[in-house]
């Protein structure tokens, strides 16, 4: 098991955001977590990344308890997050943003190869390499955010709403790349999405979340044909 969340309870002050989440991600899988606004999807990722540690419960990564490990050490262990809203460093150039993605690495030559690799994944970034991150369009920022995360050579990639606010054609392109990363590098991918249709099609398995609890879990295909899911999230 790559990543295992057991009975996670997370609070923001007095607000009980996650009420006993259980979730598993196997090596090489694409997992989707879908649910409405405010269900606790982003919090699940923030708890995994150590930004908002769980009050109760455990996060186990490759057999190690990382529940209370600091965020930078979690990145070092191989879990990297592309947060909601992309959070590009607006006054750093595209190239500097990528350098920051490789912050924990010392192998200079390989970093260069990896930068070239992400430029082949997203050629537009190569054209914009000396431009400040804040001047990019939403789609370009999402590409940069994913590239920046790839620079840390993650074993698990956490993606928070990669489709948010983007044109459908860009969304498709980004999901194609996500699948490609998963196939080529065997990177485990954990997607949080409101766009349930897209996320479940890409995923091997999916989880459905409501008000801080997981209500349903199955393979992506089965969830797509599940009557409740159809009604609540697919609008069919």
């Amino acid at each position, binding site marked *: 098991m790559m990543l295992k969340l057991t009975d996670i309870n997370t609070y923001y002050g007095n607000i009980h955001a996650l009420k006993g989440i259980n979730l598993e991600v196997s090596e090489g899988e694409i997992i989707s977590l879908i649910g409405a606004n405010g269900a606790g999807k982003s919090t699940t990722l923030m708890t995994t990344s150590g930004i908002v540690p769980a009050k109760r419960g455990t996060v186990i990564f490759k057999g190690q308890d990382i529940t209370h490990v600091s965020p*930078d050490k979690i*990145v070092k262990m191989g879990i990297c*997050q592309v947060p909601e809203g992309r959070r590009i460093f*607006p006054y750093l150039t595209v190239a500097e943003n990528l350098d*920051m993605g490789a*912050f924990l690495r010392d192998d200079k030559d390989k970093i260069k190869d990896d930068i070239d690799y992400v430029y082949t994944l997203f050629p537009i970034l190569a054209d914009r390499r000396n431009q400040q991150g804040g001047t990019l369009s939403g789609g370009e920022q999402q590409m940069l955010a994913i590239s920046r995360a790839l620079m840390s050579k993650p074993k698990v990639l956490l993606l928070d709403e990669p489709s948010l606010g983007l044109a459908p054609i860009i969304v498709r392109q980004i999901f194609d790349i996500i699948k490609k990363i998963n196939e080529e590098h065997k990177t485990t991918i954990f997607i949080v999405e409101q766009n349930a249709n897209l996320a479940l099609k890409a995923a091997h398995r999916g989880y459905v979340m409501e008000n801080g609890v997981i209500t349903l879990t199955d393979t992506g295909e089965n969830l797509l044909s599940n009557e409740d899911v159809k009604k609540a999230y697919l609008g069919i």
Partner: protein
Amino acid sequence: MFRSIEFINMRLLKIILGITAVGIPGFFGIKEIIADPVYFMELFLGGLTRGSIYALIALGYTMVYGIIQLINFAHGEIYMIGAMTALIVASVLGLWGWNSAVIAILAFVFAIVYSCAYGFTVEKIAYKPLRNAPRLSALISAIGMSLFLQNYVMLAQTPNFLPFESLIPDFEFWEPFAHIITAVEMTIIVTTVITMILLGILIKFTKIGKAMRATAQDKVMASLVGINVNNVISTTFVVGSATAAIGGVLIACHVGQINFFIGFLAGLKAFIAAVLGGIGSVPGAVLGSLVLGISESLFTGYFWSEYEDVFAFTILVIILIFRPSGILGKHEISKV
């Protein structure tokens, strides 16, 4: 429609005020400069020296503000501790009869190391526990730290002024120019320029410099790419303390005496300079410092020297009314 008239009037008012503020002194200024250019040069270079010192201190304010949005009011004290350390080291080594060049170097090194240690510790004790508290708490903590350090140095050393023998020799080759700018002033300007260049390289090109900028822009994201935010904040305090220490030792050489209180006013002036340039902006701090130093020097030279401090604080009031974001400051952009 009423609003648009109001808007135009406001602009007109600003333009008229601007022309008056620049024009009248400008007119008399040019007359004076033509009458006695050497005196003007003296004042100008004196202002440049003063501005350099402000810049060395203001950098600490602006970098710390940029990264944790805190006005570190204890920063002036770090500068004072730098000067004090240099004084103690120089006196002791002088008693032992060491070579003056070695003394100067060691005094600088010790001043920097001590100030950095103090800057680092102040952050850990007074600000880190308040990282998630309201901003006012940290500000009050900063003022408390400032008072504590002043009184601590006063008790540990002395409340009196101590003579500070210049560590910088009067270079012989400089004799012909010494009537316009002294060797010490020249050294101050050159040292400041070198420090600025090194700092610029650090911030722009090194890994830690990029991490500092990234942390200033988005702390959560910085930790999501694996940056240890606490280390970056500590580094910022240490770098700011180092430049302040350099400023402290240089000004002590220039003025020739120090006491426990010199950090207070120098710190406030540097703070004004940082606000003038746009707090949070590194080039802004340097620019603001030079503008403040030179205008202060010209003001005291041509108008009333007793009103030197009043002048600086008047500038602060004027900026806060008309351009709170400073010369190079960005308008606060709310996060998306």
